[in-house]
């Protein structure tokens, strides 16, 4: 390949600006007092404080995991600010009362919060640093019976639902980062779809980290009652700082009988500069529980940002005939590190899962797929198909696959395939011969490589994801 392949990656990160806004920030550090303070500031019911303290006490006893193929300097958990919120604490009645600077920020990020601009039929919950600033289309959703609000509101307004489901899929002591999140999480989205309702529009949460010292710890909980369905999308960006910020989120999904949840992520946190300085540590626990029969949970993720990604969206297939899906594109460039994959735990009979993972590594990045397919002794007739493909751009990037397959039932069928390749010179030559420039050819080939995953995204986002990938890779191929 010519020199232009090497010059296509270094597109500046266009979301790297900082919004100058007065915020209510507590001093850095973590202790029981800090947790009590967060809980008090958020006006939480007592059971939440107990939940947090229980998690904190477990967290103190846990060690940070070291098994992932990622390397980073030790995180000082006492130097992180655990609560930072735009200073505007009075209750908002309508969007017009939201600080215009904030609205402007989201406009700049391409997230229209104003309901008048019905550009797309998508309801958005916007989260700025630690708190939710606005949720659009609430009325319309409420008419359908769908609850879509920030989790702090839900704690006050629907405590019985929160109490029943929060921590039911990811227990407080599940892992080091999940325990930390359970102790200090400040906001997130809550979605409840009642029995038999198909959510009338796409739901979306937009996360923005603004404060340079703050960590972001949000928690999302989606409950789909019998026969309901919902499609949910999250997006994220952060400004550019020289320091690393910690993002430790937890997402829990619960699908009851015949329910269907589709969860898509387009992750574009700041990835640090070309030398690996700065960037977000994205240590996230996502898990869905297919509790009911015939339920379905589908994860789609496009991971392009973050200095380090440590993330394994999982499905626990308990209900008979339940279905788990995982579609992922992980792109790493420069000094980024990603250790991501999924876990499909088959418990019920005739459960099915599909894993399609596409990794693209460029620059000096490390991209690992780590997955687990576990077929329990009672999962008669379980079926899994996994496919992990890696594409390497340049000879300094690494691609690893660690697929764990554990089968304890002989009626199960498990298939796993993986391949590693690069953009073939003859393919490139074919395009060039037809008058298509090298850059266009490469972006077409990459988009073809990722097609299986992009086709799972809601349409508007599929277009966006395609463009995002092209931008990220600009200059790295040619």
């Amino acid at each position: 390949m010519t020199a232009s392949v090497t010059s296509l990656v270094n597109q500046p990160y266009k979301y790297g600006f900082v919004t100058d806004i007065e915020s209510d920030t507590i001093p850095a550090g973590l202790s029981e007092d800090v947790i009590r303070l967060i809980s008090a500031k958020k006006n939480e019911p007592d059971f939440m404080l107990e939940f947090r303290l229980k998690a904190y006490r477990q967290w103190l006893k846990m060690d940070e995991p070291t098994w992932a193929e990622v390397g980073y300097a030790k995180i000082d958990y006492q130097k992180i600010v655990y609560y930072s919120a735009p200073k505007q604490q009075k209750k908002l009645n309508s969007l017009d009362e939201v600080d215009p600077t904030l609205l402007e920020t989201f406009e700049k990020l391409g997230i229209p919060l104003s309901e008048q601009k019905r550009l797309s039929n998508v309801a958005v919950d916007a989260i700025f640093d630690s708190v939710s600033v606005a949720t659009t289309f609430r009325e319309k959703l409420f008419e359908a019976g769908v609850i879509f609000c920030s989790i702090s509101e839900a704690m006050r307004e629907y405590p019985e639902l929160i109490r029943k489901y929060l921590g039911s899929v990811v227990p407080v002591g599940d892992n080091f980062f999940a325990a930390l999140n359970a102790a200090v999480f400040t906001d997130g989205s809550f979605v409840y779809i009642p029995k038999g309702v198909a959510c009338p529009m796409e739901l979306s949460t937009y996360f923005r980290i603004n404060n340079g010292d703050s960590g972001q710890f949000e928690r999302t909980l989606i409950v789909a009652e019998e026969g309901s369905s919902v499609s949910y999308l999250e997006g994220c960006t952060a400004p550019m700082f020289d320091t690393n910020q910690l993002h430790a989120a937890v997402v829990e999904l619960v699908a009851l009988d015949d329910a269907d949840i589709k969860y898509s992520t387009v992750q574009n946190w700041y990835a640090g500069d070309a030398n690996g300085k700065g960037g977000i540590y994205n240590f996230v626990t996502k898990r869905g529980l297919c509790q009911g029969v015939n339920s379905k949970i589908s994860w789609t993720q496009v991971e392009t940002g973050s200095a380090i990604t440590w993330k394994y969206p999982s499905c626990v297939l308990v209900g008979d005939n339940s279905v788990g899906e995982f579609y992922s594109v992980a792109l790493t460039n420069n000094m980024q590190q990603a250790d991501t994959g999924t876990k499909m735990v088959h418990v019920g009979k005739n459960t099915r899962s599909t894993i399609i993972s596409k990794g693209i590594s460029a620059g000096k990045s490390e991209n690992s797929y780590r997955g687990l397919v576990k077929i329990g002794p009672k999962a008669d007739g379980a079926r899994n198909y996994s496919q992990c493909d890696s594409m390497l751009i340049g000879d300094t990037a690494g691609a690893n696959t660690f697929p764990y397959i554990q089968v304890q039932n002989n009626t199960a069928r498990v298939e796993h395939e993986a391949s590693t390749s690069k953009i073939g010179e003859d393919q490139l030559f074919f395009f060039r011969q037809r008058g298509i420039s090298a850059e266009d050819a490469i972006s077409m080939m990459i988009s073809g490589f990722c097609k299986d995953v992009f086709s799972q995204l809601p349409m508007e986002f599929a277009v966006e994801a395609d463009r995002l990938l092209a931008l990220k890779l600009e200059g790295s191929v040619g």
Partner: protein
Amino acid sequence: MSIQVSPTLPDVESEIRSELGLSGSAQKRQACLSRLLELAIASPSPASWLQSLRDRATAQVQSQSFPSNRNEGWRFTDLSDLLGIEFAAAANSSVQLADLAAYVLPEAEHSRLVFVDGVYAPHLSALSHLPATLQVGNLAALAEPDELLSYLAQQSGADELFTALNTAGLSDAAVIVLPKQLVVDPPIHLLFVATGGDPRSAQADQRPTLTQPRCLVVAGVNSALTLIEDYVTLGSGVCLTNAVTEIWLAENVQVNHTRVQRDSLAAFHIGKTAVSQARSSRYIGNALSFGAALSRHHLEIYQTGEQTETTLNGLTMIAGTQVGDLHSAIALTQPYGTTRQLQKCIVGDRAHAIFNGKVLVPRAAQLTDAGQLNRTLLLSPKARVDTKPQLEIVADNVKCTHGATVGQLEADEVFYLQSRGIDAASARRLLVYAFAYEIIDQIAIASLKQTLCQFITSHTD
């Protein structure tokens, strides 16, 4: 250690209990390791030049701890059954050639080396029809040990715990040195016999024994060799075999290696095969594992030159409560390498198969073509498999694929055979046989192939 605590005690105390329990089993593991090491060191050291190797290995063992399932590499292979066993060194045994009749291969009738409990047995061996320039025999008998120093225990990964344990007790070994250009026609058969609990053994108290067979093959430029490494046990007593084989392929060498492990069901087998391949060498390795209550095979390929070819075929066929583990690691550090690996497991009853296949392709290994496939057949509802084909790739201009499948016999296939008038049981037997035959067919020795086919047939009911 047992501490009686009532289950209603508060958290703090159960924590203390679990901590004590943990350190208790850690102590047990350490005690087991030091017993094994003591036993290893006590073996006679035939020459002073070996002593420094043994001392180094002893230090390596001492710096490590006995693996538990908290170690990633041993997560699924539980060695705790070894902990309680008081192993002893094997005493001299009076094995006669007649006792080994079932294992003698006609193709290698005059090119056979037999080791009983790790010690060379000249009266059982036959080395008459071999070229004069070929050095073959046991370590103690070799005239010039100096040149072996750069090979013996020099493979990467020699510091791994069980390999080091073998080296720490190194007193005898099968040694085959091929000068350059030599093509050895007859296959060389290395038969390692363990006599655990064998009535012929002179050992009065029938204690479980530790044997540590060792083998070194150094093949000079342009040479070729067919090698059969065969592990068998006489008697059905408990024994631990900790075998290490090192094979060095110089430029343009071809080695066809078949390793058969058919120990008794009371045996424990831990084995290492480490292969170094220089430029343009070809290594074909067939690893078959049928025996032992618990077996673990480390298969490691190190590439030291460009353009090597490696073919690895493996078959693990286990039933009952057997555990069969293959950990392979292929380090392709040079350009233009080709590897093909096919590992098959047939798991019956409550047996547990484990496969971990690592393929490393660092930056220098451009134009590598690596393929790996693991296929597992689960024959019973309680059978279990844990498999992890693992690729670590940095070079971009490579073709690397891996695949894994787990399943049972296809109902359609059984039905097809039934429709042709074959009863269901025979149809299943035939399909299992066919599944295994793909690997067995790769073996170059006709008589061994036949023996193994019979074994498969007799074990698929």
